[in-house]
């Protein structure tokens, strides 16, 4: 069958990064090797004639001048005598270079450039990014830009309008739009003194707590921050405190060098602070796996390689990935460099396979101190959320005051409390700790007990329920007896409801070991999001979770309990890696040989929601000890318990009731965070071709890439690596960072390949500017806020982005900086903006990740365990995008549609493609419909006048033009007619979203609100709403 494949031709340029022709800045006649020649040689020649000896042809390398001359490829001054030039010019298909099979071709301009260069003497120059940062003669950002513009016959555009400028500053610095009042104030300040107005606005925005949130958007892409482990089951991991650390560091203007050091090696600093430990989560943000059957060593190799890729790309703008298998084809990085770099991370306490197959490099018990716990994915620390705690402390303070007041003004109400307490004390002997049974005959419905699973050796297992006349029973009418002739046998029980574990809880199970046929060992195991929580008594011969180093997957509790009597086996959840707030979904009961009677099992809980569980052990003591002197907190808690179970009779009691109900139901939900713990370093070998099974390669010591240290000795600890990266002498670090900041404020970096400063990377469009910024940055103690001030206070930044056609045609990607750039907002900010203009946005900074609306069924392809999306409640539905739960394998569809990456790897730039899925999202995602409705409600409540203008001012910081108002009004009228004809549809439409609906007052009928919502929804869908000009 024959048909023609349709290949469409382009009429207009498309935003396909990487294949658009780049505006050439080489208007000057002088040829510069780094800018004009090396990019050609590197792209077209170095693969076969470059640094990698394995693919080098004819023994010729062109990346070193002496070699090129010695190899007789170049005769400086004589292009006609230089085979390099002859072979690129020839028409002979058998001889032409590059050979056709390489699919590389030189165009005429490139050929001419090479020839002219040889003629001029074929001078080389060192690669710009590897040379020390040099400041030129000019010492102002604008001067440097204008100097280059002048050479190219260009000049700066006029400044942007005040409202455009304020929006730009807001989106760039805090990522949220200005309010109409802020716009009005700024416009008048700007009229008076434009410079001062911008300065003041900048300072105010830089001081905002939302600055850190804005900066973190791009930064978290580069450090591949996500809330799940990525591989296979993509289970959740708690790392949100690290995200907050990043936000706070930007807000506190933590010097960038210190910021780097803390992330790579915060744990190794002398007496590290809690923040520095949290920062070290950076090393642990890579993907991890617990897929069944994976090999420990293979995944250790994967994690190491990922750390090298991320650290080299994120901080050094270098692509070392290729060196896992071979020396770099273009850059001077070698395979040895790759493994030496990786060796810096070999001390990190971890497993490759977070399954039974994996083991830590040392006994983890040694490290379970100073707040370090071993969770399902290795070491974590628990953090106290100070801000939330402060709020609770304020409540408790107020509770004390109110209580005093109540005592004074309503002593009779206090008597009622004393009576209640006395009654309680009378019966106090019966108050037990609160048991949450997993299996117990007291349960109304028994959870199913799975059939015992036989051991692999096929030995026989028997089980039966026995009543008291047949055998021992601990409680109720029966127990369960189980025997095994051979090795281990287990039965599992899924609790009726998943159980959340709290601080201080205890897990238990009753056993009776038959003295005639005792088992060798008994084990309990629990499934949270894995089975790696096991505790055993007796011999260590159950294979499940077996691991020479012990740890939470194989925790030995002690010898076999006494035979012939009921014993309650108990284990502290934290001993087996179940941390507070973890949820137990399944439980398992295992014995190795022998006969065991099993009875009730469960959890001793301190959850206030369980019967009497609200009364902690401490309060029980208090009740049981007459006139005991206890803390005010205990008294208050007890009083609160009383109040919540009685009718308030005084105003103070009413307020107290509210305050008590606001206190967290469970003890403060504190978060954990993965951290780096330094243990005995693993041996690192160079893996030939990256093959982890090949152990023939030499052992390597930690070292930075050799060519970058130039013979200087750098130490072998992670801290040494961090300090080397963060050193002012490192030619890459400051350049890479200022270039990324530049791209945030200008759309494209001065070198657009902001993840590759190697030979294949782009020569900077303005190298003087890049170096000047880098030098200034370092001179200002790596202050990021100062860097931003320098950028935004410049005329270059404040230019209009809409200067008219000529500018755009001449320089479509704006590499010359003769105007500002129009930038589509990143995914997170598109969400934030809609929520902010509507007033729905909840501006709390930091905290655990949240779950905004998401289409149902989106997680259906996840397993181990299956996932149900736990949509947030209340204010958490309206948090900024940066707090949205980041599921690596299924990123929230709204975010994904607007180019948010999966964060499985370091990403330094997002796809800016423009797709119909984006239109569908803005049109139909309930978040945006709800935001439109909430804004419509607010505006209609204020007044019935000038609805369109006020909506435009709120959403776009400007009034509507006459044409625009006409279009919006027509739409409004049509929609009103439609909704008046079908009020039910109107009610449906304005019922989208969980925020409360309010209409019916001030003439706000459902159809009117719906039509206004349609109108505002239209504005929120505009290109202008998602673009910063």
């Amino acid at each position, binding site marked *: 069958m024959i048909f023609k494949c349709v290949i469409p031709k382009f009429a*207009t340029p498309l935003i396909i990064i990487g294949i658009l022709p780049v505006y050439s800045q080489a208007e000057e006649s002088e040829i510069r090797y780094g800018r004009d020649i090396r990019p050609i040689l590197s792209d077209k020649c170095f693969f076969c004639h470059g640094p990698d000896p394995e693919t080098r042809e004819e023994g010729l390398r062109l990346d070193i001048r002496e070699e090129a001359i010695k190899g007789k490829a170049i005769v400086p001054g004589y292009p006609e005598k230089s085979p390099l030039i002859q072979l690129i010019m020839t028409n002979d298909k058998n001889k032409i270079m590059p050979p056709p099979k390489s*699919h590389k071709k030189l165009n005429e301009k490139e050929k001419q450039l090479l020839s002219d260069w040889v003629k001029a003497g074929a001078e080389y120059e060192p690669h710009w990014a590897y040379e020390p940062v040099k400041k030129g003669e000019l010492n102002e950002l604008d001067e440097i830009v204008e100097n280059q513009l002048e050479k190219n016959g260009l000049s700066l555009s006029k400044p942007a309008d005040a409202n455009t400028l304020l929006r730009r500053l807001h989106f760039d610095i805090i990522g949220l739009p200005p309010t109409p009042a802020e716009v009005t104030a700024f416009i008048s300040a700007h009229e008076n003194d434009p410079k001062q107005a911008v300065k003041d606005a900048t300072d105010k925005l830089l001081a905002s707590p939302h600055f850190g949130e804005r900066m973190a958007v791009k930064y978290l892409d580069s450090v591949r921050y996500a809330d799940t482990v990525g591989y296979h089951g993509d289970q959740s991991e708690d790392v949100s405190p690290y995200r907050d650390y990043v936000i706070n560091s930007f807000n506190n203007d933590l010097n960038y060098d210190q910021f780097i050091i803390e992330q790579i090696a915060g744990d190794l600093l002398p007496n590290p602070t809690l923040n520095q430990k949290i920062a070290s989560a950076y090393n642990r943000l890579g993907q991890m796996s617990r*897929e069944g059957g994976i090999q420990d060593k293979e995944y250790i190799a994967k994690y190491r390689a990922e750390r090298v890729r991320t650290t080299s790309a994120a901080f050094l703008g270098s692509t070392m990935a290729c060196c896992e298998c071979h020396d770099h084809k273009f850059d001077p990085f070698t395979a040895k460099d790759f493994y030496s770099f990786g060796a810096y991370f070999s001390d990190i306490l971890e497993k490759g396979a977070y399954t039974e197959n994996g083991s830590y490099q040392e006994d983890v018990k040694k490290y379970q101190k100073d707040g370090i716990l071993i969770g399902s994915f290795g070491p974590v620390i628990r953090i106290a959320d100070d801000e939330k705690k402060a709020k609770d402390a304020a409540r408790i303070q107020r509770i004390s005051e109110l209580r005093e007041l109540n005592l004074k003004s309503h002593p009779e109400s206090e008597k009622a409390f004393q009576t209640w307490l006395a009654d309680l004390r009378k019966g106090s002997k019966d108050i037990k700790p609160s048991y949450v049974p997993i299996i117990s005959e007291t349960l109304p419905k028994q959870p199913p007990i799975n059939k015992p699973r036989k051991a692999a050796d096929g030995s026989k297992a028997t089980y039966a329920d026995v009543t008291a006349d047949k055998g021992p029973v601990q409680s109720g009418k029966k127990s369960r007896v189980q025997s095994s002739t051979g090795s281990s046998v287990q039965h599992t029980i899924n609790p009726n409801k998943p159980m959340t574990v709290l601080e201080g809880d205890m897990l238990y199970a009753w056993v009776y070991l038959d003295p005639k046929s005792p088992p060798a060992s008994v084990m309990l195991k629990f499934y949270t999001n894995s089975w790696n929580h096991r505790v055993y008594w007796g011999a260590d011969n159950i294979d499940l979770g077996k691991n020479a180093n012990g740890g939470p997957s194989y925790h030995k509790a002690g010898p076999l309990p006494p035979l012939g009597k009921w014993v309650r086996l108990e284990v502290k959840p934290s001993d087996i890696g179940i941390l507070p707030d973890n949820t137990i979904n399944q439980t398992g009961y295992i014995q190795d040989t022998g006969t065991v009677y099993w009875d009730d099992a469960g959890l001793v809980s301190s959850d206030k929601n369980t019967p009497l569980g609200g009364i902690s052990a401490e309060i029980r003591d208090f009740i049981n000890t007459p006139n005991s002197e206890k803390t005010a907190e205990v008294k208050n808690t007890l009083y609160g318990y009383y109040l919540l179970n009685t009718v308030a009779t005084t105003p103070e009691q009413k307020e107290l009731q509210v305050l008590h109900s606001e206190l967290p139901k469970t003890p403060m939900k504190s978060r954990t965070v993965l951290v780096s713990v330094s243990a005995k370093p693993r041996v690192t070998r160079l893996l030939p071709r990256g093959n982890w099974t090949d152990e023939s390669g030499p052992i390597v010591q930690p070292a930075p890439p050799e060519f970058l240290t130039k013979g200087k000795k750098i130490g072998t600890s992670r801290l040494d690596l961090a300090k080397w990266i963060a050193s002012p002498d490192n030619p890459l670090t400051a350049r890479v960072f200022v270039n990324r900041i530049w791209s945030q404020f200008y759309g494209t970096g001065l070198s657009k390949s902001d993840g590759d400063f190697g030979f*294949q990377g782009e020569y900077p469009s303005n190298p003087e500017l890049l170096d000047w910024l880098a030098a200034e940055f370092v001179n200002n103690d790596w202050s990021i806020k100062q860097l931003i001030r320098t950028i935004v206070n410049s005329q270059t930044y404040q230019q209009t982005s809409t200067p008219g056609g000529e500018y755009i045609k001449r320089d479509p990607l704006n590499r010359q900086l003769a105007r500002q750039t129009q930038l589509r907002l990143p995914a997170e900010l598109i969400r934030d903006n809609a929520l902010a203009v509507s007033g729905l946005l909840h501006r709390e900074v930091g905290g655990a990740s949240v779950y905004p609306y998401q289409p149902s069924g989106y997680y259906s392809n996840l397993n181990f365990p299956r996932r149900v999306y736990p949509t947030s409640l209340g204010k958490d539905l309206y948090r900024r995008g940066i707090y949205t739960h980041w599921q690596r394998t299924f990123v929230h569809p709204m975010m994904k549609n607007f180019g948010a990456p999966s964060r499985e790897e370091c990403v330094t730039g997002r796809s800016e493609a423009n*797709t119909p899925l984006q239109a*569908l999202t803005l049109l139909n995602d309930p978040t945006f419909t709800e935001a439109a409705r909430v804004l419509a409600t607010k505006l209609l409540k204020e007044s019935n006048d000038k609805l369109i203008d006020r909506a435009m001012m709120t959403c776009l910081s400007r009034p509507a033009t006459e044409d625009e108002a006409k279009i919006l009004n027509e739409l409004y009228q049509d929609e009103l007619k439609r909704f008046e004809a079908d009020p039910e549809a109107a009610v*449906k439409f304005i019922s989208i979203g969980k925020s409360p609906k309010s209409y019916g007052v001030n003439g706000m009928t459902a159809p009117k609100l719906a039509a206004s919502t349609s109108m505002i929804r239209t504005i929120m*869908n505009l290109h202008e709403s998602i673009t910063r000009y």
Partner: protein
Amino acid sequence: MNPINRRTFMSHGLAGLGSLAFSRLFAAENQLGIPHYRPKVKRVIHLCMAGGPSHLESFDYKPELAKLNGKGMPESFTKGQQLAQLQGQALKCMGPQWDFAKHGQSQAEISEIFPNIAKHADEIAIIRSMHTEQINHDPAHTFMNTGSIIPGRPSMGSWVLYGLGSESQNLPGYVVLTSAGGGQAQPISSRQWSNGLLPGHLQGVEFQAAGDPVHYVNNPSGITEASQKDVINAINRLNGINSKRTEHHDIATRMEQYELAFRMQAAVPELMDTKGESQQTLDLYGCTPGDGSFASNCLLARRLAERGTRFIQLYHRGWDHHSGVKNGTKAAAGYVDQGTSALLTDLKQRGMLDETLVIWGGEFGRTPMAQGNGRDHHIKAFSIFLAGGGIKGGITHGETDDLGYGIVKDPVSVHDLHATMLHLLGLQHDALTFKTQGLDFKLTGVEPCKVIKEILA
């Protein structure tokens, strides 16, 4: 924009943009010289049997293995090899659990668990010598889809769209559907259909079995089609005014996307609505359309193919048979056999098989050694089959050793498969490159690979 009567704008706009849409957006620049040669097929339907189907129970019959059933696996085969869950355990052979028969004129040996696929014996090319590099599901799928084990590289579907664009005016050019049944449902990451380094519009779009078939494709509740149309109309008129002011080409593209989104809102329900399918067709697939089954997805695949979708992937998550490989393979085959066969028949009846490449296979195979009564992951050899345009039907390519452990003839790498697929689409694998961060990326990576000429017609 001229002040056009807005009532006429929408129809005008649609007509005017009809020729642009996806096809224009979804294409690599002409400088790649595409197509490199005359294409044999227009599209690919990849039936991905996720979990790793056992080649020994499907397309690679091993009587010698049957003889060694229960006996120790000769150490010469396995010494020093990477195993998954069987690492360090005593290795025993397990014979094929199902009988095989010879089918068609070609006498291709196919297991009895595939009575329907077997009817196509003379149309399919079986490859018994596939091998891969990754022994665990997640990285193995990533390798199969992207040719790399480093996450973040483009999926083959994205590469194909990048090279050829889509022919559909109003549906995505790369669509993914999933189903489950017959064994442990391995998770599947959306990384498998990610655009990776390529621009975002080249990503695969997953159609959901439940809820909205495509996220956000339905109008908000209470909004009629007319209302939505008016809103989009107003958005684009306002964007038009803005476009004049800012002269940014992005706005024109965005306006097209709103038109396209609107068309998609109509096209997706039309796609999913199978009322027009004859009873005969429904009987052929043997499914209730829209039930989320593999067969139902096969029917949708045909409908997508008809509407110009370039790359269609159906994942069936049910082939990870660490235990119970006998009943498991039978059960999983029960989920996919009829659907696969129906798809081949249906495409053929409509004259579309010749312009479609159908690939059936998993991310790896399974060990000849027993794991209890199941089999472990195996990367040294596994079987897949191809059918459709440019494929030589009725041949069996490649050979494994007597026990189905290693390859003894014509090994085929994942990159070879990619190169062959691209070749059939008219693309030369080492010329389809994308430059980013200074490097030229290719689907087929840096190691040498080849088009499997022997299976081409």
